């Protein structure tokens, strides 16, 4: 059996994640959710089974944590229009469909678990406020869309 020495370079690990996982995701929200899902709820450490044969646990944790922070920083300063568009794209990827996703996100607020643990309070609150606003906008668009469909079906 070949003896593999784990790589200790976080930059290399980050490039790996960017190239193999993140690049395939069409929006920042998908990247944020993907990266936050690699974080252990109890320890706060980032774990990736697929990378563990190439990198040490510390390197994986550092790489995923840094990437998570990077994606969050991009999203939090994005214009609201871009933010809404991004969230819309993300909901488009879900099996549940946009209407259900908006409803669930409003009620359960899963986005609160998607942010990096050590983000500052101002960025965090701005992000939450932007998500709430984006959900209201998407809901409004859905309402308008269904009203348009109703009125067009009632026309003779």
């Amino acid at each position, binding site marked *: 059996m070949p003896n593999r020495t784990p790589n200790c370079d976080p930059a290399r690990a980050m490039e790996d994640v960017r190239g193999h996982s993140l690049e395939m995701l069409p929006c920042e929200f998908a990247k944020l959710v993907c990266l936050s899902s690699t974080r252990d709820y109890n320890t706060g450490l980032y774990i990736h089974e697929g990378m563990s044969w190439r990198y040490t646990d510390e390197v994986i944790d550092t790489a995923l944590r840094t990437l998570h922070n990077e994606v969050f920083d991009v999203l939090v300063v994005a214009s609201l229009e871009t933010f809404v568009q991004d969230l819309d794209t993300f909901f488009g990827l879900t099996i549940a469909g946009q209407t259900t996703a908006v409803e669930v996100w409003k009620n359960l607020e899963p986005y609160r678990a998607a942010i990096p643990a050590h983000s500052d309070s101002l960025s965090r*609150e701005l992000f939450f406020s932007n998500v709430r*606003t984006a959900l209201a906008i998407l809901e*409004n668009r859905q309402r308008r869309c269904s009203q348009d469909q109703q009125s067009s079906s009632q026309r003779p």
Partner: protein
Amino acid sequence: MIGILTTVLALLFLAVLLAWALGFSTNRKSASWSGSIKLPSRLIRERISSREDFQFVGVEAPEFRSQFLRDRKILMLICLQQMRAVAIESFRIHRTAVSLQVSMKPAVELRLAGDYLTFLLLWELARSLVWISNPVAAQSLTARVYTAAEELSDAAKQLIATNHSLRTEI
């Protein structure tokens, strides 16, 4: 008209004095330079007071506009508090430097005191405007407050960098 103007100016002066006094009392409580008090990011501040976002909400979800402005108002008030904390901490470093008799030119001291007073005055005005109106209306004023806080913070950092005795004291 002159009477109202005099009253407004007197109130502003009192507010500045009060804020300064409060600043000093807060300084006494803070034991040491933690280095953790950082200015919020400029991009975050700009995003909070963005007119573009406000107009976008107005077009897309007009009924949500007041909630949006309420959120942004709270965020800007937090942002302003963070700027004030940085300015107070920077001025505390300046006072520590003076008490340690770190050689400072009188012109520099005077400029720093002037900058601090200007900051407090601008800060009070910005906070009042955000409170009465909204962060979008106070956009240019909050930008000036940010620049003033940044200047104070830079001056403090420079003081720390050039004085070893000050570094050990704080």
